[in-house]
């Protein structure tokens, strides 16, 4: 395997992870340059080249793949720098995207804000009302045309939008996923009127292409978001591609997708890049887990402002986002779910006087600017990082590998004035409570996320990633009662590491209602062609697409998943289909039985209701090509005892179960040998993080360079 360069853009840093052959990966970080992401991007690549002792030409010329988890699209949404688009939709339904199923004001909001009903607002739309034009047409729920579409009507709509300055068209018609004929007709007319070889050529996006799924609001919004960020991303990525080519890179730039795969820039829908970094991290957990033989993994990533949670179950990423919201837009992309909650090192602690002085942590965050009080950048609010510092867990002179000095006095003052004094307790007790509360919130949130998917967290291994993951893992892990916590050596750049592990993959989805067990007749469907034709259609699309990527049909693997429901349930339960095609009632019965089995496991057997009828509502065909990734080779273990050189100074750290501050040994993570064991309490400092090993916990540095934590004593929290 040749060189791969993997990049994950974060709010503060852009992370890089390079691999070559069987050698150890190289890590670097570069400050994210928000004014022009390519600056930080190229700077990091230069740093990697230096790390390998090569020139840029040599380095990029020898690179097989550059894989990129980009936030360009998300930034375009936040900054609202997308193009002026025109929306052509079914006449009479021009307000669908503004109506937003009513409660769109709540999408992307937090629960407390959504409860303050006098102050709610919907997001400012990406397409203003005057740029929406209806055309007379209508399909019904079976995809039958009820009202034909007239060419003259389309021309009139186009002229109106062009006159108003449209720079692109989004075409979203009702029931187009069931019958796209009218949307395609609109596209044909646009292409006739504004041919590609003319300067006035305007891009056209059809909802039946971008998101062929039921439910017009999310289908329309998905298409609009895709169109809105498409141009910005295309421009930026073209520029980046040119810079890479100028630097000697000869292969296509690959983009990581939120579906857990990657594709060339030229074969990527923009909307599939949202949140790709965390999804890449989750994929990294899946891959690293395979090295350990773990099938069930809870992935967490605790950074400065957020705490990401994802699940690997049965050795697969099969949990799709139930309501994928991008910024404030509810979409229907088949994204792998990585949930984010407002808890991190920068989360602010405060006292809720109204509720009897209860202590709250977050969801507000001090972020990185001004950041925690101890950063001395003007922050006056006490944060989780301040509490960690006061409790002696963080080394004020070795934070982020010594790149930032922390001021403990500022932490104490902030905690005293905002928490300790209002509660009538001392600063240390206040810091202890802040930590206890945030750990509980994270632990309980993780528990809920895992449990809501029908899993028992106790059957999982916990991966604690992110800069603060190792610092709080012993605090939140007991809420999950997991047996084992893994803190990867790649943890500080885990998203970039994860990008190195993703395959060429895309999910092709399509809504299609099929009643495979009829309620009225209480029998299985006899219509097998309907099922098979949808699967074949998706297979053909996937195969054609991957051929353009340069892969032959023999290299392509498929997996079929189905969204199913009983009767008139609205929400759907996804299963992996036991059959790629059906040829008799027995096959339908097997699918139904599998659905009921899964449903029963998630929601209890009392909830099942097969006699109510069983529908398939949506097909998801995952097409993938297995690619090589760095197979980590475990290093030989060197014995239990850490070498003397790994022992740093000891310092006072607070351990609640031991009754207060105790002199605690500090270790240097990098100088620990594989196999070394440490019993808590102890502190282990790595360049990008600090392990807080609480009493009762045991640490082992394993052959993969990860820290493995196990609770050997009684858990302190529950």
């Amino acid at each position: 395997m040749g060189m791969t360069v993997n990049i994950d853009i974060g709010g503060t840093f852009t992370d890089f992870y390079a691999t070559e052959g069987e050698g150890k990966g190289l890590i670097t970080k570069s400050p994210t340059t928000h004014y022009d992401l390519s600056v930080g991007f190229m700077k990091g690549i230069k740093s990697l080249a230096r790390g390998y002792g090569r020139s840029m030409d040599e380095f990029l010329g020898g690179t097989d793949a550059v894989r990129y988890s980009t936030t360009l699209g998300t930034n375009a949404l936040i900054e609202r720098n997308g193009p002026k688009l025109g929306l052509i939709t079914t006449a009479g339904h021009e307000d669908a995207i503004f109506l937003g199923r009513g409660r769109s004001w709540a999408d992307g909001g937090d629960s407390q804000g959504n409860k303050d009903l006098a102050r709610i607002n919907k997001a400012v739309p990406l397409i203003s009302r005057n740029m929406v034009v209806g055309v007379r047409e209508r399909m019904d729920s079976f995809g039958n045309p009820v009202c034909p579409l007239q060419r003259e009507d389309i021309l009139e709509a186009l002229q109106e939008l062009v006159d108003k300055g449209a720079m692109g068209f989004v075409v979203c018609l009702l029931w187009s996923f069931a019958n796209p004929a009218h949307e395609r007709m609109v596209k044909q007319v646009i292409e006739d009127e504004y041919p590609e070889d003319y300067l006035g050529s305007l891009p056209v996006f059809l909802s039946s292409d971008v998101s062929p799924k039921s439910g017009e609001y999310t289908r329309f919004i998905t298409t609009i978001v895709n169109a809105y960020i498409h141009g910005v991303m295309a421009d930026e990525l073209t520029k980046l591609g040119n810079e890479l080519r100028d630097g000697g890179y000869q292969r296509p730039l690959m983009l990581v997708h939120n579906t857990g795969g990657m594709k060339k820039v030229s074969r990527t829908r923009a909307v599939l890049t949202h949140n790709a970094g965390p999804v890449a991290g989750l994929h990294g957990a899946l891959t690293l887990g395979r090295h350990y033989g773990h099938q069930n993994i809870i992935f967490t990533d605790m950074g400065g402002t957020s705490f990401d949670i994802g699940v690997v179950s049965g050795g697969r990423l099969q949990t799709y986002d139930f309501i994928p919201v991008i910024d404030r837009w509810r979409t229907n992309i088949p994204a792998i779910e990585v949930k984010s909650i407002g808890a991190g090192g920068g989360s602010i602690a405060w006292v809720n006087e109204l509720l009897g002085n209860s202590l709250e942590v977050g969801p507000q965050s001090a972020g990185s600017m001004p950041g925690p009080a101890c950063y001395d950048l003007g922050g006056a609010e006490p944060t989780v990082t301040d509490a960690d510092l006061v409790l002696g867990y963080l080394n004020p002179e070795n934070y982020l590998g010594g790149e930032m000095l922390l001021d403990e006095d500022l932490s104490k003052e902030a905690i005293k004035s905002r928490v300790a004094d209002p509660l009538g307790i001392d600063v240390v007790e206040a810091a202890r409570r802040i930590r206890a509360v945030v750990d509980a919130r994270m632990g309980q949130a993780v528990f809920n996320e895992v449990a809501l998917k029908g899993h028992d967290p106790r059957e999982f291994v916990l991966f604690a990633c992110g800069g603060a993951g190792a610092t709080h893992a012993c605090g939140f892990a007991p809420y999950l009662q997991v047996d084992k916590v893994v803190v990867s050596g790649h943890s500080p750049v885990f998203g970039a590491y994860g990008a190195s592990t993703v395959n060429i993959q895309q999910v092709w989805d399509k809504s299609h209602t099929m009643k495979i067990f009829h309620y009225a007749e209480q029998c299985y469907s006899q219509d097998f062609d309907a099922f098979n034709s949808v699967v074949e259609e998706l297979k053909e699309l996937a195969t054609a697409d991957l051929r353009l990527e340069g892969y032959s049909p023999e290299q392509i693997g498929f997996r079929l998943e189905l969204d199913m429901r009983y009767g008139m349930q609205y929400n759907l339960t996804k299963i992996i289909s036991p059959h790629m095609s059906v040829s008799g009632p027995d096959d339908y019965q097997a699918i139904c039985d599998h659905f009921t089995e899964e449903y029963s496991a998630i929601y209890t057997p009392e909830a099942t209701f097969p006699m109510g009828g069983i529908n398939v509502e949506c097909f998801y065909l995952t097409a993938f090509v297995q690619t090589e990734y760095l197979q980590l080779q475990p290093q030989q273990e060197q014995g239990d005892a850490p070498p003397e050189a790994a022992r740093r100074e000891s310092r006072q750290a607070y351990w609640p179960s031991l009754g207060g501050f105790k002199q605690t040994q500090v270790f240097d993570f990098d100088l620990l040998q594989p196999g070394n064991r440490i019993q808590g309490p102890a502190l282990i400092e790595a360049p990008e993080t600090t392990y807080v090993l609480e009493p009762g916990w045991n640490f082992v540095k394993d052959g993969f360079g990860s820290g493995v934590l196990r609770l050997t004593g009684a858990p302190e929290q529950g």
Partner: protein
Amino acid sequence: MCAMVYARDMEVVQQLKPEPMTPRETAAQDKIDDVEYDIFVHKMNMVAQEGKETTMKLGASSGMRWGDVAFGIYTAQGDLAVVATGIWFHAVLGQLPVKYIVKHYVNDSSVGVKEGDSFFFNDPFYGGVHPADMGLCVPVFHEGELICFVGAVVHSGENGGTDPGGICPSARTKYDEGLISPPIKVGENYTLREDILNMFAAMNRDARTMILDIKARLAACRIAQRRILEFVGQKGPDLVVGGLRRILSVTADAARHKVSQLNDGVFRQPRFMDNVGMTEGLLKINLTLVKKGDTIKLVFDDTTPMLPDKPLNSFFQGIIGMAMVYFCGWFLHDLPANNALLAPIEWDFPEDCLLNAKGEAPTSMAPFPQTLFANAMFMAGARMTYHMDPSRAQASWYQGFGVPLFGGINQWGEPVADITPEINATGAGARNDQDGVSGAGAFFATMSDCSDVETTEADRPFLYLFRNYFKNSYGHGKYRGGAGVGFGLKMHHVPGAAMGCFGFGSRFPATLGIFGGYAVPPVFLSTVRQSNMGALLSSSDAGLPNNLDQIYGEGNPEQGQREFHHITLPIQLFMYGETFYVPVGGGAGYGDVLERDPQAALDDLAEGRASGWVVTNVYKVVYDPGTLRLDEKATKDLREKALAERLQGAKPFDEFVEEWSKLKPSDDVLHSYVTYPHPSVGIKQGPLMPSL
């Protein structure tokens, strides 16, 4: 044990406030660590949230599908301590069935409350609203001790009444309103009883949906039960028993404290309704809020008396529940939602009162007087709280409903009976600094969803001709209300289906504005029998109407037997191709229309939200009709002239009262009102003006 009397329990419904702390709960208080308590509260909220999400995921009715769900954790005495919902009346009403179970069944040898049991309920006397709201709860035992209950309440819709869809405008007594079940054990040993489900199914037009909803509630309860027992296994039962109790205590203290910060005063708001079920008529609700110290008392003297044979009555507890909608969302939004929020609330309902239903009186349209009361509550509440926080003194969201009911066989040959979901897209009220949110939702179910057209059409026997914001749908003002939604339905796929509609505000506005803001204009239903709409569609007729304005306007090519109705239309058969047009109103206005930014009024015109007539005649804006360019000078002059005309129309108060008092609606609309203008005069003499 409390003996069963086979009648509604008048005592248990009085127990809306938290029960006294038990010795068990008191003893547990000393064992609770402050930090553990904070963690416990978060955990219980997560459990409730998981319960709500699970219920929604698994349910099938419109209410369930679109989030009309409340999931709660109750103390062993039945108080609701933790709830996840956007339907805040359930935060105080969901407890009554549980308290009923505690009172009547825990020690009853024929029923009993045991581990693995499950109880169903939909009697509105205990649920407080109407029979379409159905609930299920299960007890949670730990080593033989009943430590709490968990339960889910959801609007399931159809329950087998005289009219399909769960609302029965034609009901004459409660016996016309279908299944009305006080708490009943439906499962034992973790198994639902098929005989009971079979009975429910036999009483329901849409049995499948009802059963799916029951199973959804039960699944959510079982998961929550498991979570709580896991927590108890780690922390012991004391934290749960004592912690739930402490949540109530803390909430009660906080609510009293916040109320005490309001100025003392008396705030009055009469409201009128133009609907008496199947017929039109005028009714009155007369709300007086008396704020003194740390209590707010709700007084309803001079309200229309109970209507023994009309479904417009409400149980008093439903009104208290609706008061909580206002308190939870607008005044106490920063406090936990549970029945301890009632700690500072007192109430006084006259014995003979529309809002204090008794006996056999039907109540399936109770949401009408309840939302009418809510409009009064918004208006009086805005005046009561303005001094403390003007930004939350908001004009009312739309109160008048406008909800089609339907029943029949759908395009898949399956029985359906339900309501359409556009009630979850009404406009929000205007605010002190900005317009209301258009299509925001239902003020009483704010986290609910109005669905996609495609999702609704997928298994319903109609096709949406249009669904969009309709012109002049909101109350005008310095800040206008959010726009409401108008939609047209054509019967499709099937030979015919039963259709009706319920709501009020066709003759008298359903939702009034505040501080000079306008009311939401009256709305009405229109239908076209033997419509040519199908032909117009298939020929892509250039004149196809795409909104209510075009339906009502000249040049509408739709032909057939056009009828205009009050927004409440009794169920009747509509045949294939016939059409049905429904407006769901916007929010009420705030402040003087002459203070509205003229450009904002023109923007509304440009977007089709307001008509040119309104811009010219209500907002007094002068503009070029071709370019919509504002003429600032002429507008300023016109507004000054309008102000001067207002002053010219001024008269001394006594003179105004004398003229006003001569006005009286005709007798044919006062048939249920009793004595005009003061209904109470015809009932009993009592204080009309509560004093501090």
